C-alpha cells in the first residue's frame, strides 16, 4: 500500500475510531515484531530509534514508526517534534514515520495506538516501533501494545531508589543506558545490574548505547530481535498478543461507556450501570460477543 493511503487510514483511525473495525477487517492479518520504546523526556528515545531504524534498514527490513508526544490539557493542541531526530530517513520508502498526539490518553500513548499498530502490521512492515511520550513512573500502557519493551534511561536519571519503584521499571524487557558518553554511565549500569540480579531477572538485558555516536546499536538490535524470536518460539508472543487484545477491548469499553454515560440522564451513579455491565460481561465470558 502506498504511503499516502496508509497516512489517510491512520487519520481515519485517529478521528473516527468507531470505524476502525470496518477499516482494518478489509486488510490481511499479519504479525510483525512490535517494539516499544519508553522512558523519561530527554533520555534520547527518538535519536535511539533513528539509529535502530538505520540498523534494521541496513539488513533490508522495512520499518514503521509511531512517535507519540503529549497534547496540551488546556488547548488540546500539540507540538510533535520527534521527527526532527529521524531526518535521515525522510526520503527512504522503506520507512514510514508518523507523529501522533496523545490526545488526553493516559499511559503514554494515544487511544488509537492499537488500531494503528495493527494497520502497520497489516500493510506489511517488517518492524513496528512505538515511541511513547516522555513518561513518568506510571505510564505503562506500552507494555500491552508492544511485544518487546525497551526502557531507555540515561545518566542523571536518579538514584537507585528510582530503580526500586513499581511501575515503569518493571515493564521492560530490555534496559538501555543511553548517552553512555556521559559521566555517570557506569554507576547507572552497575545499579541496573544489581537491581535486576536482586529481582532475579536476566542481567544480560542491559545495554549501553550512545545514540549520538551510534555505539551499542548493533547489540541492542540483536537483543531485540533475538528476544522477539524467542517469544515467538516459546509461545510467549501468543500470550502477549492475547493481552494486547484484552487491553484493546478495555480501551474500547472505556470509550463506549464514556460515550453512553455522557448521553445518559442519570439521577444516581449506580443506576443500572453495574447491572448492565455485569450482563455484558456474562455474555463476553460465554463467548457470545459484546454485541446487543
Amino acid at each position, binding site marked *: 500500500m502506498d504511503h*499516502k493511503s496508509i497516512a489517510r487510514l491512520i487519520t481515519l483511525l485517529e478521528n473516527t475510531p468507531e470505524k476502525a473495525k470496518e477499516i482494518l477487517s478489509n486488510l490481511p492479518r499479519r504479525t510483525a515484531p512490535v517494539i516499544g520504546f519508553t522512558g523519561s523526556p530527554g533520555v534520547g528515545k527518538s535519536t535511539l530509534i533513528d539509529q535502530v531504524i538505520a540498523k534494521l534498514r541496513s539488513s533490508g527490513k522495512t520499518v514503521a514508526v509511531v512517535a507519540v508526544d503529549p497534547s496540551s490539557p488546556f488547548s488540546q493542541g*500539540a507540538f510533535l517534534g520527534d521527527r526532527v531526530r529521524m531526518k535521515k530517513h525522510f526520503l527512504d520508502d522503506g520507512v514510514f514515520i508518523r507523529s501522533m498526539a496523545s490526545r488526553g490518553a493516559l499511559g503514554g500513548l494515544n487511544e488509537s495506538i492499537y488500531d494503528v499498530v495493527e494497520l502497520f502490521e497489516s500493510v506489511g512492515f517488517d518492524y513496528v516501533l512505538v515511541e511513547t511520550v516522555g513518561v513518568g513512573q506510571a505510564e505503562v500502557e506500552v507494555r500491552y501494545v508492544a511485544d518487546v519493551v525497551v526502557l531507555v534511561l540515561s545518566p542523571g536519571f536518579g538514584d537507585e531508589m528510582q530503580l526500586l519503584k513499581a511501575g515503569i521499571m518493571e515493564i521492560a524487557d530490555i534496559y538501555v543506558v543511553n548517552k553512555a558518553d556521559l559521566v555517570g554511565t557506569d554507576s547507572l549500569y552497575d545499579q541496573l545490574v544489581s537491581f535486576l540480579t536482586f529481582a532475579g531477572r536476566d542481567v544480560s538485558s542491559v545495554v549501553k548505547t550512545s545514540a549520538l555516536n551510534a555505539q551499542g546499536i548493533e547489540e541492542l538490535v540483536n537483543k531485540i530481535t533475538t528476544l522477539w524470536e524467542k517469544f515467538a518460539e516459546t509461545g510467549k508472543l501468543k500470550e502477549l498478543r492475547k493481552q494486547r487484545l484484552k487491553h484493546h477491548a478495555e480501551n474500547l469499553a472505556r470509550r463506549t461507556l464514556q460515550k453512553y454515560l455522557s448521553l445518559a440522564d442519570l439521577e444516581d451513579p449506580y443506576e443500572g450501570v453495574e447491572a448492565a455491565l455485569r450482563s455484558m460481561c456474562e455474555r463476553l465470558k460465554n463467548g457470545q460477543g459484546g454485541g446487543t
Partner: protein
Amino acid sequence: MKKYRILIAKPGLDGHDRGAKVVAHALRDAGFEVIYTGLRQTPEQIVKTAIQEDVDLIGLSILSGAHLQLSKKVIDLMKKEGIGHVPVFVGGIIPPDDVPKLLEIGVCRVFGPGTPLSRIVQEVKEVLEGVTSASGS
C-alpha cells in the same frame, strides 16, 4: 472529531528557526497538532513528511531569500505527488514585492516579520475552514 494537523517546515539552508518555533507554539496553543521537521529540509523531504503525516496545512519558514524558488519547488512537488490540494503558507523575511509572486505560485498566505501571532492563527483558521467547506468534508 476532526483535529487539524499542520506541518511547519524549514526548507533551504538558513539555520535559524526561532520564528518557525514561535509560530508552531502559537498554533499549538490555538489547539492545532503541529508537526515540526527541523532545519535544512529539501522540498522532497518536506513533501514526503506532509504525505506521511497527512497534514491539512503546510507552513514554510524561509529566511534565506530563496522563498520564490523553494516555495515553487514544494508546490510543484506536492502537485506531482497528488497532495496539491493542501494549502501552503509562507513566513519569514519576504520583501513586499515578492508577496504577489508567492501568491501566484500558489501560496495561500504570506506572513512577513512583525505579523502578530493572533493574525497568523486567525488566518490559518480561515484557510482551514475554507478548505473544509470547499471539499465538503
